């Protein structure tokens, strides 16, 4: 029975099934709380831990968990392999919104520079204030960048072993952004598409972009462009940081 419940096909079935269910729920109910990626991570983590517990009982150890996670990773490696092509596909929204890019290039450029500066700056400052381990602080540099690019940045910074922490923080940043951005925008008393789109895309990547589309399609287009420019700029910052460290 355990063999069936941990078989590659069943893991893929669960992953796609949970994701699709929550994607449908969040579309139906228009709320960022049902973010499909967040819930897939939570429920699958719970499932894996439960399977290990059923198998080993109270004797379960960190090694057993690691083994089960590795089994899950190899079952779903097709998703991981496709991450490269998925990142390349980001060229599509960039191309489809090229007129937005051309019209607002100055605002996008300044927004991205300030966005990357304040994002990396706040992580460095908070990491220092909280006395956080240096390599973990480095792994948090790209926390505001879209996941595909964030992963590459941890490799550039030489903290590839913490990539999964980065990915988890990136996803949570998107969800926090989707929850906090609307009240912040209300607080600032403003409804300009360019401002909303840039702040959302720059501070909370793809999930923020989907929130921006709720304001207007122009805000969404600007958000998707700024998500990519923000990512590219963070890569450049990471390369410079690495050259300084090395």
């Amino acid at each position: 029975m355990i063999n069936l419940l941990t078989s590659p096909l069943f893991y893929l079935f669960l992953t796609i099934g949970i994701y699709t269910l929550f994607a449908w729920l969040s579309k139906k109910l228009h709320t960022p709380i049902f973010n499909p990626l967040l819930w897939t991570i939570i429920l699958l983590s719970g499932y894996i831990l439960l399977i290990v517990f059923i198998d080993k009982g109270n004797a379960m150890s960190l090694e057993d968990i690691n083994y089960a996670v590795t089994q899950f990773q190899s079952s779903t490696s097709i998703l991981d392999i496709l991450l490269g092509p998925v990142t390349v596909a980001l060229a599509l929204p960039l191309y489809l919104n090229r007129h937005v890019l051309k019209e607002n290039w100055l605002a996008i450029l300044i927004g991205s520079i300030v966005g990357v500066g304040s994002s990396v700056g706040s992580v460095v400052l908070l990491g220092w204030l909280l006395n956080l381990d240096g390599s973990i602080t480095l792994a948090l540099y790209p926390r505001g960048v879209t996941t595909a690019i964030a992963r590459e940045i941890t490799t550039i910074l030489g903290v590839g072993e913490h990539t999964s922490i980065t990915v988890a923080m990136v996803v949570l940043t998107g969800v926090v952004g989707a929850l906090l951005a609307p009240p912040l925008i209300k607080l600032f008393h403003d409804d300009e598409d360019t401002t909303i789109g840039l702040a959302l895309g720059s501070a909370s990547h793809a999930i923020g972009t989907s929130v921006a589309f709720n304001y207007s399609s122009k805000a969404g287009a600007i958000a998707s462009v700024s998500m990519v420019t923000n990512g590219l700029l963070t890569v450049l910052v990471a390369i410079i940081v690495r050259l300084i460290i090395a």
Partner: protein
Amino acid sequence: MKLFKQLLLIFSFTLVGTLISYLLSLASFPFPGSLIGMILLFIFLLFGLVKVDSIHGVAQFFIDNMGIFFVPAAIASLKQIEIISAHWWKLLIILFAAFVISFTCTYWAVKLTLHLQHKGKKEAIVEQEANHD
């Protein structure tokens, strides 16, 4: 067939990007291959060397369902459960504070830029009109 062709085209850009990234890494410049592929595809689309229709279906599917491709990477954080549980409250503070800081900074920087641009345009128009008189 159509989907396979689109997949092959997107894979090609990814692979070429990876190759260029490898060559750059020999010159100790670590630029991610998938991003090189993305920039190349964007340029090819701009110059009409690749038609939107020949990638649109698959690319749009990837974009619309981007989240699911990160599930394996995120689940791997279970392997780091020791580190995360040791630092969880620090991570939580950074999660919230860093978002509010970067969102607010970006927001006001863009607002100021647009304001100055708008003002610049207005002044240019006023000047033009003054010259006419």
